[in-house]
Protein backbone atom coordinates (compact mmCIF):
# COMPACT_ATOMS: atom_id res chain seq x y z
CA UNK A 1 0.00 0.00 0.00
CA UNK A 2 1.61 3.32 -1.00
CA UNK A 3 2.03 5.78 1.81
CA UNK A 4 -0.02 8.94 1.53
CA UNK A 5 1.84 12.21 1.77
CA UNK A 6 -0.98 13.65 3.88
CA UNK A 7 -3.69 11.97 5.93
CA UNK A 8 -6.93 11.57 4.01
CA UNK A 9 -8.91 11.24 7.20
CA UNK A 10 -7.87 13.42 10.10
CA UNK A 11 -10.73 12.11 12.18
CA UNK A 12 -10.79 15.66 13.46
CA UNK A 13 -12.15 18.91 12.11
CA UNK A 14 -11.24 22.36 13.32
CA UNK A 15 -14.13 24.80 13.56
CA UNK A 16 -14.40 28.41 14.67
CA UNK A 17 -17.71 28.76 16.49
CA UNK A 18 -16.72 31.83 18.49
CA UNK A 19 -15.13 34.19 15.98
CA UNK A 20 -16.96 37.06 17.64
CA UNK A 21 -14.28 36.75 20.35
CA UNK A 22 -11.32 36.76 17.91
CA UNK A 23 -8.84 39.65 18.30
CA UNK A 24 -6.63 38.71 15.34
CA UNK A 25 -3.49 37.90 17.33
CA UNK A 26 -2.70 35.08 14.87
CA UNK A 27 -1.26 32.84 17.62
CA UNK A 28 -3.36 29.99 16.19
CA UNK A 29 -1.74 30.46 12.79
CA UNK A 30 1.78 30.84 14.15
CA UNK A 31 1.69 27.95 16.60
CA UNK A 32 0.18 25.41 14.24
CA UNK A 33 3.60 25.23 12.56
CA UNK A 34 5.29 24.15 15.78
CA UNK A 35 4.68 20.47 14.99
CA UNK A 36 6.90 20.97 11.94
CA UNK A 37 9.61 22.73 14.00
CA UNK A 38 8.96 25.96 12.23
CA UNK A 39 7.18 29.24 12.64
CA UNK A 40 5.27 30.43 9.61
CA UNK A 41 2.00 31.81 8.38
CA UNK A 42 2.18 29.41 5.45
CA UNK A 43 1.14 25.79 5.78
CA UNK A 44 -1.29 26.64 8.55
CA UNK A 45 -4.83 25.31 8.23
CA UNK A 46 -6.16 28.74 9.28
CA UNK A 47 -6.33 32.11 7.59
CA UNK A 48 -7.60 35.04 9.62
CA UNK A 49 -8.95 37.95 7.61
CA UNK A 50 -9.62 41.31 9.27
CA UNK A 51 -12.49 43.64 8.39
CA UNK A 52 -12.20 46.71 10.64
CA UNK A 53 -12.79 45.30 14.13
CA UNK A 54 -14.20 41.99 12.91
CA UNK A 55 -12.33 38.84 11.98
CA UNK A 56 -13.20 35.88 9.79
CA UNK A 57 -11.50 32.49 9.77
CA UNK A 58 -10.96 30.34 6.73
CA UNK A 59 -10.13 26.81 7.83
CA UNK A 60 -8.95 23.87 5.78
CA UNK A 61 -8.71 20.97 8.20
CA UNK A 62 -7.70 18.55 5.45
CA UNK A 63 -4.25 19.97 4.75
CA UNK A 64 -2.59 19.22 8.09
CA UNK A 65 -2.40 16.51 10.69
CA UNK A 66 -4.52 16.23 13.80
CA UNK A 67 -1.72 17.41 16.15
CA UNK A 68 -1.44 20.63 14.13
CA UNK A 69 -5.16 21.22 14.44
CA UNK A 70 -4.93 20.63 18.18
CA UNK A 71 -1.95 22.97 18.46
CA UNK A 72 -3.92 25.70 16.67
CA UNK A 73 -7.02 25.24 18.80
CA UNK A 74 -5.06 25.26 22.05
CA UNK A 75 -3.08 28.35 21.02
CA UNK A 76 -6.12 30.59 20.86
CA UNK A 77 -6.15 32.77 24.00
CA UNK A 78 -9.86 33.49 23.62
CA UNK A 79 -11.12 29.96 22.88
CA UNK A 80 -12.49 30.84 19.46
CA UNK A 81 -11.60 27.48 17.95
CA UNK A 82 -12.84 23.98 18.63
CA UNK A 83 -11.77 20.50 17.57
CA UNK A 84 -14.62 18.25 16.57
CA UNK A 85 -14.10 14.53 16.14
CA UNK A 86 -15.64 12.96 13.06
Amino acid sequence: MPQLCYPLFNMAVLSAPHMDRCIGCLLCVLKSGWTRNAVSLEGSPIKIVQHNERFEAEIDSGVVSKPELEQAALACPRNCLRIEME
Partner: protein
Amino acid sequence: MPNFSRQVLTIDLSQREASYGSFADLGHLLGGLGIGLELLRLYRDAHPTVFSVGPLNGLFPFASKVCCLSLLPGKVAESYLSGQSSLMMRFAGIDAIVIKGTSPTPLYLSVYPGGVVDFLDQEDAPTKFLKSGIMGRRSQMVFSGSGGLANEYFGIDEETARKLFLGNLLGLSISGNEVLPILKEKEYKSLYLEILGRGGELDVPFDGKPSCGGCPAGCEFSNLPEQKYDLILSHCLVTCGFSARIYESVPFVFSCLNILGLPYKHEDLEALPDRIKYIRQHV
Protein backbone atom coordinates in the same frame (compact mmCIF):
# COMPACT_ATOMS: atom_id res chain seq x y z
CA MET B 1 31.04 41.49 17.49
CA PRO B 2 28.29 39.73 15.51
CA ASN B 3 28.00 41.01 12.00
CA PHE B 4 24.71 39.66 10.81
CA SER B 5 23.50 41.24 7.66
CA ARG B 6 20.01 42.65 7.42
CA GLN B 7 17.74 42.40 4.39
CA VAL B 8 16.70 45.85 3.23
CA LEU B 9 14.16 46.74 0.56
CA THR B 10 14.79 50.19 -0.89
CA ILE B 11 11.97 51.73 -2.92
CA ASP B 12 12.48 54.85 -5.03
CA LEU B 13 9.07 56.35 -5.76
CA SER B 14 10.46 58.85 -8.32
CA GLN B 15 12.10 56.20 -10.47
CA ARG B 16 9.59 53.41 -9.72
CA GLU B 17 12.49 51.20 -8.78
CA ALA B 18 13.00 48.75 -5.94
CA SER B 19 16.16 47.01 -4.82
CA TYR B 20 16.42 44.26 -2.25
CA GLY B 21 19.74 43.35 -0.70
CA SER B 22 21.86 42.56 2.31
CA PHE B 23 23.35 45.31 4.42
CA ALA B 24 26.29 43.63 6.06
CA ASP B 25 27.04 46.14 8.82
CA LEU B 26 23.66 46.56 10.46
CA GLY B 27 23.80 43.51 12.73
CA HIS B 28 25.48 45.28 15.64
CA LEU B 29 22.46 47.60 15.87
CA LEU B 30 20.17 44.60 16.50
CA GLY B 31 17.14 45.84 14.50
CA GLY B 32 14.19 48.21 14.66
CA LEU B 33 15.25 51.62 15.96
CA GLY B 34 18.96 50.85 15.54
CA ILE B 35 18.91 49.83 11.90
CA GLY B 36 16.16 52.36 11.13
CA LEU B 37 18.28 55.27 12.36
CA GLU B 38 21.35 53.99 10.54
CA LEU B 39 19.39 53.70 7.27
CA LEU B 40 18.03 57.22 7.80
CA ARG B 41 21.61 58.39 8.21
CA LEU B 42 22.80 56.53 5.10
CA TYR B 43 19.97 57.89 2.92
CA ARG B 44 19.53 61.26 4.65
CA ASP B 45 19.96 63.26 1.44
CA ALA B 46 16.84 61.58 0.06
CA HIS B 47 14.74 62.36 3.19
CA PRO B 48 13.49 58.78 3.46
CA THR B 49 10.87 57.02 5.56
CA VAL B 50 12.02 53.74 7.08
CA PHE B 51 9.93 50.84 8.41
CA SER B 52 11.98 48.28 10.33
CA VAL B 53 11.55 45.18 12.50
CA GLY B 54 13.81 43.34 14.93
CA PRO B 55 15.09 39.77 15.34
CA LEU B 56 12.28 38.68 17.70
CA ASN B 57 9.32 39.87 15.62
CA GLY B 58 7.10 36.99 14.59
CA LEU B 59 8.99 34.60 16.83
CA PHE B 60 8.12 35.69 20.37
CA PRO B 61 4.95 37.07 21.98
CA PHE B 62 4.60 40.85 22.35
CA ALA B 63 7.33 41.42 19.71
CA SER B 64 4.65 42.91 17.57
CA LYS B 65 5.48 46.43 16.40
CA VAL B 66 7.12 48.09 13.40
CA CYS B 67 9.51 50.98 13.97
CA CYS B 68 8.56 53.91 11.70
CA LEU B 69 11.11 56.67 11.23
CA SER B 70 10.72 59.57 8.89
CA LEU B 71 13.20 62.32 8.20
CA LEU B 72 11.37 65.65 8.30
CA PRO B 73 12.83 69.15 8.14
CA GLY B 74 14.76 69.59 11.37
CA LYS B 75 13.58 66.43 13.07
CA VAL B 76 12.96 62.70 12.93
CA ALA B 77 9.36 61.50 13.32
CA GLU B 78 9.53 58.30 15.38
CA SER B 79 6.62 55.98 16.11
CA TYR B 80 5.84 52.30 16.55
CA LEU B 81 3.09 50.84 14.40
CA SER B 82 0.70 48.21 15.74
CA GLY B 83 -1.09 45.53 13.76
CA GLN B 84 0.11 42.64 11.64
CA SER B 85 2.72 44.56 9.62
CA SER B 86 5.64 43.33 11.73
CA LEU B 87 4.66 39.69 11.15
CA MET B 88 4.29 40.29 7.43
CA MET B 89 7.66 42.00 7.15
CA ARG B 90 9.31 39.19 9.08
CA PHE B 91 7.68 36.48 6.96
CA ALA B 92 8.49 38.40 3.78
CA GLY B 93 12.16 38.16 4.74
CA ILE B 94 12.48 41.95 5.02
CA ASP B 95 14.15 43.64 8.00
CA ALA B 96 13.65 47.19 6.76
CA ILE B 97 11.84 49.06 4.00
CA VAL B 98 13.32 52.40 2.92
CA ILE B 99 10.95 54.62 0.93
CA LYS B 100 12.36 57.69 -0.80
CA GLY B 101 11.44 60.14 -3.53
CA THR B 102 8.11 61.41 -4.83
CA SER B 103 6.00 59.59 -7.35
CA PRO B 104 4.85 61.69 -10.35
CA THR B 105 1.39 60.12 -10.11
CA PRO B 106 -0.62 58.53 -7.25
CA LEU B 107 0.77 55.13 -6.49
CA TYR B 108 0.06 51.98 -4.47
CA LEU B 109 2.74 49.41 -3.62
CA SER B 110 2.35 45.73 -2.99
CA VAL B 111 5.40 44.02 -1.45
CA TYR B 112 5.83 40.26 -1.73
CA PRO B 113 8.29 37.87 -0.05
CA GLY B 114 11.87 38.26 -1.19
CA GLY B 115 11.46 41.99 -1.84
CA VAL B 116 9.32 41.73 -4.97
CA VAL B 117 7.38 44.99 -5.44
CA ASP B 118 4.33 45.61 -7.57
CA PHE B 119 3.86 49.28 -8.50
CA LEU B 120 0.15 49.95 -9.01
CA ASP B 121 -0.66 53.25 -10.68
CA GLN B 122 -3.37 52.59 -13.24
CA GLU B 123 -6.90 53.95 -12.98
CA ASP B 124 -8.04 50.78 -11.27
CA ALA B 125 -5.09 50.81 -8.82
CA PRO B 126 -7.27 51.31 -5.69
CA THR B 127 -9.31 48.20 -6.54
CA LYS B 128 -6.22 46.21 -7.53
CA PHE B 129 -4.51 47.28 -4.32
CA LEU B 130 -7.34 45.92 -2.15
CA LYS B 131 -7.01 42.57 -3.93
CA SER B 132 -3.20 42.58 -4.01
CA GLY B 133 -1.02 40.44 -1.80
CA ILE B 134 -1.60 37.02 -0.30
CA MET B 135 -5.06 36.73 1.25
CA GLY B 136 -4.84 36.09 5.01
CA ARG B 137 -1.08 36.66 4.92
CA ARG B 138 -0.96 40.39 4.28
CA SER B 139 -1.10 43.75 5.98
CA GLN B 140 -2.32 46.81 4.14
CA MET B 141 -1.59 50.42 5.05
CA VAL B 142 -3.28 53.42 3.50
CA PHE B 143 -2.00 56.98 3.76
CA SER B 144 -3.89 60.24 3.55
CA GLY B 145 -3.32 63.91 4.29
CA SER B 146 -4.83 63.54 7.73
CA GLY B 147 -3.11 60.31 8.81
CA GLY B 148 -3.10 56.65 7.94
CA LEU B 149 -4.49 53.28 8.88
CA ALA B 150 -3.15 49.75 8.76
CA ASN B 151 -5.72 46.99 8.22
CA GLU B 152 -8.49 49.62 8.53
CA TYR B 153 -7.92 49.84 12.29
CA PHE B 154 -4.35 50.48 13.46
CA GLY B 155 -3.34 54.14 13.37
CA ILE B 156 -0.18 55.29 11.62
CA ASP B 157 1.75 58.30 12.90
CA GLU B 158 0.18 61.40 11.33
CA GLU B 159 3.40 63.05 10.19
CA THR B 160 4.76 59.85 8.61
CA ALA B 161 1.47 59.12 6.85
CA ARG B 162 1.18 62.70 5.56
CA LYS B 163 4.75 62.64 4.27
CA LEU B 164 4.16 59.42 2.32
CA PHE B 165 0.85 60.80 1.02
CA LEU B 166 2.58 63.97 -0.19
CA GLY B 167 5.09 61.71 -1.95
CA ASN B 168 2.04 60.36 -3.83
CA LEU B 169 2.16 57.01 -2.06
CA LEU B 170 -1.42 56.12 -1.14
CA GLY B 171 -1.07 52.54 0.03
CA LEU B 172 1.44 49.87 1.00
CA SER B 173 0.61 46.18 1.19
CA ILE B 174 3.07 43.64 2.65
CA SER B 175 2.58 39.90 2.27
CA GLY B 176 4.62 37.25 4.03
CA ASN B 177 4.70 33.49 3.65
CA GLU B 178 8.26 32.44 4.43
CA VAL B 179 9.00 29.63 6.88
CA LEU B 180 11.35 30.28 9.81
CA PRO B 181 12.88 27.06 11.12
CA ILE B 182 13.25 26.60 14.88
CA LEU B 183 16.79 25.51 15.74
CA LYS B 184 16.55 24.76 19.46
CA GLU B 185 13.04 23.39 19.47
CA LYS B 186 12.62 22.47 23.12
CA GLU B 187 14.19 25.64 24.51
CA TYR B 188 12.32 27.86 22.07
CA LYS B 189 8.91 26.45 22.90
CA SER B 190 9.62 26.59 26.62
CA LEU B 191 10.73 30.24 26.48
CA TYR B 192 7.84 31.21 24.21
CA LEU B 193 5.31 29.78 26.64
CA GLU B 194 7.11 31.41 29.57
CA ILE B 195 6.81 34.84 27.91
CA LEU B 196 3.19 34.21 27.04
CA GLY B 197 2.59 33.34 30.71
CA ARG B 198 4.05 36.70 31.74
CA GLY B 199 1.18 38.60 30.12
CA GLY B 200 0.22 39.88 33.57
CA GLU B 201 3.40 41.97 33.59
CA LEU B 202 2.19 44.18 30.74
CA ASP B 203 1.47 47.79 31.67
CA VAL B 204 -2.06 47.43 30.30
CA PRO B 205 -4.84 44.95 31.06
CA PHE B 206 -6.00 42.39 28.49
CA ASP B 207 -9.04 43.56 26.54
CA GLY B 208 -11.03 42.33 23.55
CA LYS B 209 -9.88 44.91 20.99
CA PRO B 210 -8.18 43.93 17.71
CA SER B 211 -4.66 42.95 18.66
CA CYS B 212 -1.21 43.12 17.15
CA GLY B 213 0.13 39.95 15.51
CA GLY B 214 1.69 37.71 18.16
CA CYS B 215 0.11 39.51 21.11
CA PRO B 216 -2.87 38.01 22.93
CA ALA B 217 -3.64 41.19 24.91
CA GLY B 218 -5.91 43.08 22.51
CA CYS B 219 -5.44 46.15 24.68
CA GLU B 220 -7.44 49.35 24.41
CA PHE B 221 -4.45 51.23 22.98
CA SER B 222 -3.72 48.80 20.14
CA ASN B 223 -5.12 51.19 17.52
CA LEU B 224 -2.73 53.98 18.46
CA PRO B 225 0.83 54.32 17.18
CA GLU B 226 3.18 54.03 20.12
CA GLN B 227 5.22 57.15 20.76
CA LYS B 228 7.39 56.36 23.78
CA TYR B 229 10.97 57.38 23.29
CA ASP B 230 12.67 56.30 26.51
CA LEU B 231 13.20 52.64 25.63
CA ILE B 232 16.20 51.38 23.69
CA LEU B 233 16.32 47.59 23.84
CA SER B 234 12.54 47.23 23.34
CA HIS B 235 12.64 49.60 20.38
CA CYS B 236 15.57 47.81 18.76
CA LEU B 237 13.70 44.53 19.15
CA VAL B 238 10.50 46.40 18.23
CA THR B 239 8.53 44.80 21.03
CA CYS B 240 5.47 46.47 22.50
CA GLY B 241 6.30 49.34 24.86
CA PHE B 242 3.80 47.93 27.35
CA SER B 243 5.95 44.79 27.66
CA ALA B 244 9.07 46.75 28.68
CA ARG B 245 9.21 44.91 32.01
CA ILE B 246 9.89 41.73 30.02
CA TYR B 247 12.07 42.95 27.16
CA GLU B 248 14.17 45.65 28.82
CA SER B 249 16.13 42.95 30.67
CA VAL B 250 19.49 42.36 28.97
CA PRO B 251 19.97 38.80 30.32
CA PHE B 252 16.46 37.83 29.23
CA VAL B 253 16.86 39.27 25.73
CA PHE B 254 20.25 37.55 25.53
CA SER B 255 18.45 34.21 26.16
CA CYS B 256 15.88 34.93 23.46
CA LEU B 257 18.56 35.78 20.88
CA ASN B 258 20.69 32.84 21.88
CA ILE B 259 17.82 30.38 21.41
CA LEU B 260 17.34 31.73 17.88
CA GLY B 261 21.00 31.00 17.21
CA LEU B 262 22.07 34.66 17.18
CA PRO B 263 25.36 34.78 19.11
CA TYR B 264 25.14 38.29 20.53
CA LYS B 265 27.05 38.95 23.72
CA HIS B 266 25.90 40.84 26.80
CA GLU B 267 28.32 43.63 25.91
CA ASP B 268 26.70 44.06 22.48
CA LEU B 269 23.32 44.63 24.08
CA GLU B 270 24.69 46.85 26.81
CA ALA B 271 26.47 49.02 24.23
CA LEU B 272 23.27 49.70 22.29
CA PRO B 273 22.17 52.90 24.10
CA ASP B 274 25.50 54.60 23.35
CA ARG B 275 25.42 53.48 19.72
CA ILE B 276 21.84 54.72 19.27
CA LYS B 277 22.71 58.04 20.91
CA TYR B 278 25.67 58.47 18.54
CA ILE B 279 23.63 57.72 15.42
CA ARG B 280 20.81 60.03 16.55
CA GLN B 281 23.34 62.86 16.71
CA HIS B 282 24.53 62.12 13.18
CA VAL B 283 21.24 61.67 11.33
